């Protein structure tokens, strides 16, 4: 039994193509059903996000399964196969396992380390479970992918550093001021980055926001949006000392806060530190403010540098993450290979036993006068023959489970003795953890 992956992502297709192939979440039942009706496809999961559309499936026929899924994707969305095909990639066996582990760990994402993809895959898996299109193998596979993703997130710093200016500002604030839950942010002026940063601060638990603007109505509007307090621009320096974090982005041509103002503010705050973030160009805050004790001034350029450093660090962490993925692949692949060994051994044995029993019964019922103890003897005889015959193939299958070519042996045994595939009937399957 093999796992196959077919799909496209932002790496192989533009958004124009991706949106044509997307499966919508509230109509996922139909495509899942059709997927399972494809010949040779036993289990299936569809993952469709704005950056990728992928189908995971299990099949015995790798080449055929992949081809059929490709066609399915084209036909379901009424696209010409030749138009879609060049954008599709496919994986099977170990490379399929690696791909899905990597995707779940956000290693294949546009921004490595992004947190959304894991949730998206979990949701897709939820649908597959609900509509029973996934079975034992994909269930176990995706659960494993989730735990690998978790390992990557906790054991590497792939997702821990800020890669946007707004996040960098929040992280820096925590390094200066500690816990943000009793800290107040003052917004001077307005602007996208300013407001985004304020939002991030609030999301990170900041206590409150004060907004001031030359136009008081604007300040009021913003204050309402943030659930904060509007301050008149003329009264800025009456309230500035209440802020632990100052975000400034006005259109003023010169500085509105100078070192003397900063010293006043710090003294009034009993020397509690203040984090100034100057987003404006030309600058709102005199650079000499940074020389004031307990005042810490950063501009957007500084924050950008931090983001660059973090991005570089993420790619280092990504290498560690790839190692973790490689470790986990080995384990899972082994499980997958040995999955069929036990049921095959059981099936082989029961096949032999059926024949033994049938012939034994035939012989005994045809015998007119059985000597005493003969039945037992015959039972013993047939069992012994069967066991001895089974001994070699059984140990070989068990040993093959430890080594490599298990598929080969399992397939050979099943074909040679015409055994039913155990994975069609999930109740027969015993999982060895």
């Amino acid at each position, binding site marked *: 039994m093999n796992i196959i992956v077919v799909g496209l992502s932002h790496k192989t297709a533009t958004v124009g193509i991706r949106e044509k192939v997307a499966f919508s979440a509230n109509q996922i039942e139909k495509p899942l059903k059709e997927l399972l009706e494809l010949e040779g496809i036993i289990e299936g999961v569809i993952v469709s996000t704005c950056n990728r559309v992928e189908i995971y499936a299990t099949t015995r026929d790798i080449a055929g399964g992949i081809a059929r899924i490709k066609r399915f994707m084209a036909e379901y969305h009424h696209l010409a196969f030749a138009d879609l095909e060049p954008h599709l990639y496919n994986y099977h066996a170990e490379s399929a396992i690696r791909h899905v582990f990597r995707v779940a760990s956000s290693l294949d994402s546009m921004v490595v380390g992004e947190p959304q993809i894991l949730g998206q895959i979990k949701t897709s898996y939820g649908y597959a479970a609900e509509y029973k299109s996934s079975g034992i193998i994909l269930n176990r596979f995706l659960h494993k992918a989730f735990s690998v993703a978790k390992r990557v997130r906790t054991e590497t710093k792939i997702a821990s550093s800020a890669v946007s200016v707004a996040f960098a500002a929040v992280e*820096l604030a*925590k*390094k*200066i*001021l*500690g*816990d943000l839950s009793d800290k107040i942010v003052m917004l001077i002026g307005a602007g996208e980055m300013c407001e985004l940063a304020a939002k991030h601060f609030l999301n990170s638990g900041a206590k409150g926001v004060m907004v001031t603007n030359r136009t008081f109505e604007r300040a009021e509007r913003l204050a309402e949006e943030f659930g904060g307090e509007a301050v008149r621009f003329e009264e800025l320096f009456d309230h500035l000392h209440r802020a632990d974090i100052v975000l400034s982005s006005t259109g003023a041509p010169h500085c509105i806060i100078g070192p003397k103002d900063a010293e006043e503010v710090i*003294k009034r*705050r*009993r*020397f*509690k*530190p203040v984090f100034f973030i100057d987003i404006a160009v030309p600058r709102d805050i005199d650079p000499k403010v*940074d*020389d004031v*004790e*307990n005042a*810490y001034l*950063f501009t957007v350029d*500084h924050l950008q*540098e*931090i983001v660059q*450093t973090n991005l570089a660090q993420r790619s280092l962490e990504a290498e560690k993450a790839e190692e973790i993925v490689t470790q986990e692949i080995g384990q899972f692949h082994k499980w997958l290979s040995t999955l069929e060994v036990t049921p095959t051994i059981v099936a082989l044995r029961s096949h032999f036993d059926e024949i033994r029993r049938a012939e034994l019964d035939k012989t005994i019922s045809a015998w007119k006068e059985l000597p005493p103890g003969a039945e037992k003897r015959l039972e013993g005889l047939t069992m012994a023959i069967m066991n001895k015959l089974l001994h070699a193939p059984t140990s070989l299958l068990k040993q093959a489970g430890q080594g490599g070519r298990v598929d080969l042996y399992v397939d050979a045994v099943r074909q040679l003795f015409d055994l039913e595939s155990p994975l069609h009937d999930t109740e027969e399957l015993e999982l060895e953890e």
Partner: protein
Amino acid sequence: MIHIFFYLTLALYSCATLAYLAFIIRTTSGLGLWANRFALAGFTSHLLSTIHRFSSSGHLPITNMHESLSFFALSIVGSYLLFERKYKATILGAFIIPIALILVISSSAFPTAIRELNPALKSNWLGIHTIMAFVSYAMFTIAFGAAVAYLIQQYFLKKKRLGALFQKLPSLNTLDDISYRCLTIGFPLLTLAIISGAIWAEKAWGTYWSWDPKETWSLITWFIFAALLHSRLTTGWRGQRASLLTIAGFLIMLFTFIGVNLWLPGLHAYK
């Protein structure tokens, strides 16, 4: 004769120091855990060594340079372990534990013979006075460590050099908290230590204060930390100035503790 536990303590503190320093370079939770374990094990062994010394000599082990330095180190490590648990700032160990290690190593350089306690010192006041003094010294040592870390972080922030070490050290706020907490515990203890010393001196020698070098320098130390605490409580003084004064206070305290005993004659000198 140095007890086996003492050597064990030395070994464990060395391992802890190495672990904490390695932790600064490679900040993995595994290393941090091991550093903490070594420090804890070292402390336990150190405590046993001290208790053993106490029982075999019959008096509190602070009567010579060897014992004092050792007891000081013990107080430092004990106090630090409590702070590490509360503030989870494992990395501070790299600032503090090496100090304890140096103290223990230095203590082994001094003669270790157990001496009879000077009969004038046989009093309950000995325990009260000295233990409070030692614990206050330990507090000031940790405050020193936090102050140094604070100045390092401040430097990074002002120079905009936010590298690996910056990320690993705790926030300015945490360091300030730790320093302040140490001050609020250490200062009252030092005050009580000086007062109890004076009361005891009156009982033993007839005068509360004799301007013995130890007494004088303790007073100087006391004034520095009093000034620090006072300005913190009134004008809210904190940050660079406070850190520098904390470091100065620590150095004076070190002189009070060691320098006075070694170089200046007086009541507290170890003859």
